[in-house]
């Protein structure tokens, strides 16, 4: 029973990161009208920046967190003109071109990470960020401080995002563009400007994810971005592309499934089993569990 509870907590904290990443990915899809497959790779880049800043400042947490969030916002907003240029026609999701831009961005970042930081070896985050003492431990399984934090911050961030989406002027414009870009343009919503706001907001969520992943995994490697990118894409498709509530449920579910497999079966097979589960779901519901909303 204790193992079960511990793995549920582990799973939810891992899941809350998938949720944050899937939400940022879906926001870009719905409002900026791009498929930013490599959005999680950009997030991992921010993790490296956090690591560099922590090393340079003698583990100053505040500066590290600030650097993570700011770099994520900047990296996202700076990529906006590239995507815009490639998408010739606003108002349509030009899947092919934005996918290629995003994948290219992912390759470049992964290569930079493996050439320019720590000789390509995985980086480890200091204990003052990750927490040294496990909250409790049962055999091989433990619940860390970072896991509880990531669950709490993830929950707050996602709630804040939904409040912003449903209670503010910008959120209303986001939803209007998500539902009907041409109609939103017609009522006078500045499409490009609002799109850039969505890049910035995805940047905020990406930056928070970067910190939370560091707290949860204690380390990062150049390949981490690709692995997360695959999972986030899978979560979004299984939930139904562009479906924010779906992304929330499926993201948490994937985290819990992975944790339970690690807790009760072979941990090293957790990715394979999780993807088999998702494959079955997508065969059963090709448009995702909650339906496509693009």
């Amino acid at each position, binding site marked *: 029973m204790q193992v079960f509870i511990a793995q549920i907590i582990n799973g939810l904290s891992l899941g809350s990161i998938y949720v944050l990443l899937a939400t940022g990915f879906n926001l870009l899809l719905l409002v900026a009208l791009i498929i930013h497959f490599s959005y999680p790779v950009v997030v991992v880049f921010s993790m490296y920046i956090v690591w560099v800043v922590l090393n340079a400042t003698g583990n100053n947490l505040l500066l590290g967190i600030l650097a993570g969030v700011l770099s994520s916002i900047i990296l996202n907003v700076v990529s906006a003109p590239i995507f815009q240029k490639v998408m010739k026609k606003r108002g349509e999701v030009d899947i092919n071109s934005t996918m290629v831009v995003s994948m290219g961005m992912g390759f470049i970042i992964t290569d930079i990470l493996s050439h320019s930081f720590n000789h390509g070896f995985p980086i480890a985050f200091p204990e003052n960020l990750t927490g040294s003492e496990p909250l409790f431990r049962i055999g091989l399984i433990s619940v860390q401080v970072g896991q509880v934090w990531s669950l709490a911050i993830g929950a707050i961030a996602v709630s804040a995002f939904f409040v912003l989406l449903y209670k503010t002027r910008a959120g*209303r414009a986001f*939803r209007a563009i998500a*539902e009907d870009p041409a*109609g939103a343009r017609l*009522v006078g*919503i*500045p499409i490009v400007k609002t799109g850039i706001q969505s890049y910035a907001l995805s940047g905020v969520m990406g930056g928070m994810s970067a910190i939370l992943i560091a707290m949860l995994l204690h380390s990062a490697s150049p390949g981490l971005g690709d692995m997360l990118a695959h999972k986030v894409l899978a979560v979004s498709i299984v939930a139904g592309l562009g479906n924010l509530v779906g992304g929330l449920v499926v993201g948490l579910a994937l985290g819990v499934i992975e944790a339970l497999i690690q807790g009760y079966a072979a941990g090293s097979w957790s990715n394979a089993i999780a993807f088999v589960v998702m494959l079955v779901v997508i065969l059963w519901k090709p448009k995702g569990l909650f339906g496509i909303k693009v």
Partner: protein
Amino acid sequence: MQNEKTATTAPEGALLKVENLSVSYGHINALKSVSIEVFLGEIVVLIGANGAGKTTLLSSILGITPSQSGTISFDGQRIDKEPVDKIVRKGVCLVPEGRGVFASMTVMDNLLLGAHHNLKNKDKYLKRVFEWFPILEQRKNQVAKTLSGGERQMLAIGRALMSEPKLILVDEPSLGLAPIVVNEIFTILQMLNKEGYTILLSEQNTFKALKVAHRGYVLETGKVTLSGTAQQLLNDPGVKAAYLGA
């Protein structure tokens, strides 16, 4: 409503002036050197068959469809190179064909989207819209897809009013509505006009449109072929034969 502003109070300059406007989609010339004028306080109707260019003209005025040549001036200023959101800020708005409201958003959200650029005055305009359309106040928390066709048209008009417009472009308001609802919509447009709103209307229901309009233009395959007062057009033999079924 006591306002007696009519077409006869034509000021020195037109509120909207379209001159020699040409628009093409690829090789198809949707508009060929079209010129129209709308004066403050008028209801002007664009008459024409499907594909004559009525919707294209309205969407180029709003800046959605780019033009190849010609000019569009509003309130004495060129607007033909401005982006849509700037043109909306200047006081032009469009009630789209097919009642293009945001179906999965609430009535209130739809109205507030109309006021996206002047939310500080939203309460004043909401109050007026709810006076015009009490049904919208009753349904303000419902999502728009639960509304009837007529109610959606009212929502689309209400949303336009939220943007503090001087000129309202209305594209085919009667499309797909029951005759009794069509009458209601035309009455509303007439009342709005008496309150001081200038209206440019595109309509296939020629008879009803000419009954409420001051003036009209006939569009055929992208060209203005005839223009005049509503009465002149109603009496024109060509218009009678082609559009009034007489």
